[in-house]
C-alpha cells in the first residue's frame, strides 16, 4: 500500500460516520422541528420533508456516483453524467426564466461552454487527474454554482430590455449598433451576477469555512491540502460563473435585436 492510499484509507475511516452516526445527526433535525413547534412556525412538515428528501437524493447520487468513480469504469459514464447535469441545469434555467427567448439552447450552450473551459483548464494543466472520481464532482461544481447566476443575469437582461426600452432606442436612434446600445445593460447584469461571487470569495475563511474544505477536513485530510483543493474550487466557481453568464448574456443580447438593429417588441401595448 502506498503512502497516499494509506492516507486515503485512514481518511475514509475517519470520515465514515456510520449509519448510527447518520441517524444521530438527525437529532439536529429534531431540534429544528422543536424550534418550529415551540415558536409555532408551522414548518415541521417542511423541515421533515426537506431532511428526508435530501437524504434520499444524496443516497441515490452516492449510489450512482459509485458507478462512475471507480478507476476501472470507462470515462464515458462520467461524461454521460455531465451531459445529464448540463441538460438538467438548462431545463431548470428554462423553467425559472421562461420569458427569455431561446432560453433552452442558450443555456445548453452556456453551461457546455463553461464546462469545456473550466474542466479544460483543470485537466489540461494536470491540476486534477482525469478520472470519473474528479470529473463528475468538478463538473457538478461548474454547473451547480453557475445556475443561479445564469438565471439572474437572464432575467435582468430581459427586464432591462423592457424597462429601459426608451433609453436603448434612444441610443439606437443616434446610430449606435445594437451591441453598443445594449452594452451598458449587459455590463450591469454581468456585474450583478459576478459581484456576489467576488464578495463571497473575499470573505472565505473569515466569515465561513467553505463546504469542500470542511468536508475534506472531516474526512481526515490534512488542512493544508484541504485548503489547496478549496482554493482551486473557488477559482473554478469564479471562472465558471463568469464564463456561463458571459456566454448566456451575449446569446440573449443577440436574440433581443433584429439584424436591422431594432429592439424586438415583447408582448405589450404598441405605440400610438
Amino acid at each position, binding site marked *: 500500500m502506498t503512502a497516499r492510499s494509506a492516507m486515503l484509507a485512514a481518511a475514509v475511516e475517519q470520515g465514515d460516520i456510520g449509519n448510527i452516526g447518520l441517524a444521530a445527526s438527525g437529532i439536529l433535525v429534531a431540534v429544528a422541528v422543536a424550534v418550529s413547534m415551540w415558536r409555532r412556525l408551522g414548518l415541521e412538515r417542511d423541515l421533515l420533508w426537506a431532511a428526508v428528501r435530501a437524504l434520499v437524493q444524496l443516497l441515490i447520487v452516492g449510489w450512482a456516483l459509485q458507478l462512475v468513480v471507480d478507476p476501472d469504469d470507462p470515462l464515458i459514464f462520467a461524461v454521460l453524467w455531465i451531459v445529464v447535469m448540463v441538460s438538467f441545469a438548462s431545463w431548470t434555467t428554462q423553467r425559472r426564466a421562461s420569458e427569455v427567448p431561446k432560453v433552452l439552447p442558450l443555456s445548453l450552450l452556456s453551461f457546455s461552454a463553461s464546462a469545456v473551459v473550466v474542466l479544460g483548464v483543470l485537466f489540461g494543466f494536470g491540476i486534477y487527474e482525469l478520472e470519473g472520481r474528479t470529473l463528475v464532482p468538478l463538473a457538478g461544481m461548474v454547473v451547480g454554482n453557475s445556475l443561479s447566476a445564469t438565471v439572474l443575469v437572464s432575467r435582468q437582461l430581459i427586464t432591462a430590455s423592457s424597462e429601459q426600452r*426608451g*433609453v436603448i*432606442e*434612444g*441610443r*439606437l*436612434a*443616434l*446610430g*449606435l*449598433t445594437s451591441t453598443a446600445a445594449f452594452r*451598458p445593460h449587459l455590463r450591469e447584469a454581468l456585474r450583478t451576477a459576478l459581484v456576489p461571487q467576488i464578495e463571497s470569495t473575499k470573505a472565505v475563511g473569515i466569515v465561513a469555512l467553505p463546504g469542500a474544505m470542511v468536508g475534506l477536513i472531516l474526512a481526515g485530510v490534512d488542512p493544508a491540502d484541504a485548503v489547496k483543493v478549496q482554493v482551486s474550487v473557488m477559482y473554478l466557481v469564479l471562472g465558471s460563473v463568469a464564463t456561463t453568464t458571459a456566454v448566456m448574456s451575449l446569446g440573449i443580447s443577440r436574440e433581443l435585436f*433584429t439584424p*436591422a*438593429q*431594432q*429592439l424586438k*417588441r415583447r408582448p405589450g401595448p*404598441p*405605440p*400610438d
Partner: protein
Amino acid sequence: MSSRDVFELVGVSAGPSAAPILRDLDLDIPANGVTVLAGPSGSGKSTLLRLLNRLDDPVSGEVRWRGRPLTEWDPTELRRCVAMVFQRAPLFPGTVLENLRVALPEVDRERAVHVLEHVGLSGELLGHDADTLSGGEAQRMCVARALLTEPAVLLADEPTAALDRSSRETVEDLGRQLADSGVAVVWVSHDTDQLRRLADHVIVLTDGSVRAVGHLDDLDASDDPVVRRSVGSPS
C-alpha cells in the same frame, strides 16, 4: 433639398401583424420645412414616425427615402441621417458632455458648447449630471445630441407633450429654427395650437389611414369636419 428627399410609403401596413395599426398606406411625406402628423390617439402617428428611421419595419409594403428602400440602407447610417427625439427624453447615465459623446465620441468641449448654445442651453451645463436637467432642458439637450450626427431630417415624437408651457414654446422655436436652417422636421402632435404655429405641411391620420394631406390653408377649407377638428380650424 431635392424632391428625392421625400419619404415615400407604398402599401405600408405596420404595427402588430395580427392587428396592424397602419393599413395599406400610400403616402409621400415632404422632407422639408416642418411636417406635422396629426390625428387622434391610436391613429398611428408614432407608428408611422418609427418606420422612417427603421426603429420598426412595416409588416408589408415599402418605405423609401431619397429614392432608396430603407431596407437597403445601413440602419446605423440611416439613423444618423434621420435623427429622432422622443416624448420622454432618454437620458443616459453621466454628465451632459457624456450624453453628447454617445452620439459623437470625438466631440470636443468647444463643439459641445456650440451645439448646446445652438439649442438655447448654456455651455456651463456640460459638466452637470444629465439627470439634474429640467424637462425642457433635457429635451433640448436630446435635440443637441441628435444634431451632432448632422441629420438631414429630425423626427420628433410629441417632444413637448411632457413639458410646461414655457419649455414647450422654447422647443417649438427650436423646431422652427432647425427647419429654417435646412433640417427637415417631421413632428407628431396632438396639440392643434402647436400644429397651427409650426406646420408647413400637415398629414392627418385617422384609424391607420391618411385622412388628409396638405398645407394648413387647404385643410382649413376642407369639408371634412374630422380634418378641420384635427387641425383646429377656426369655426
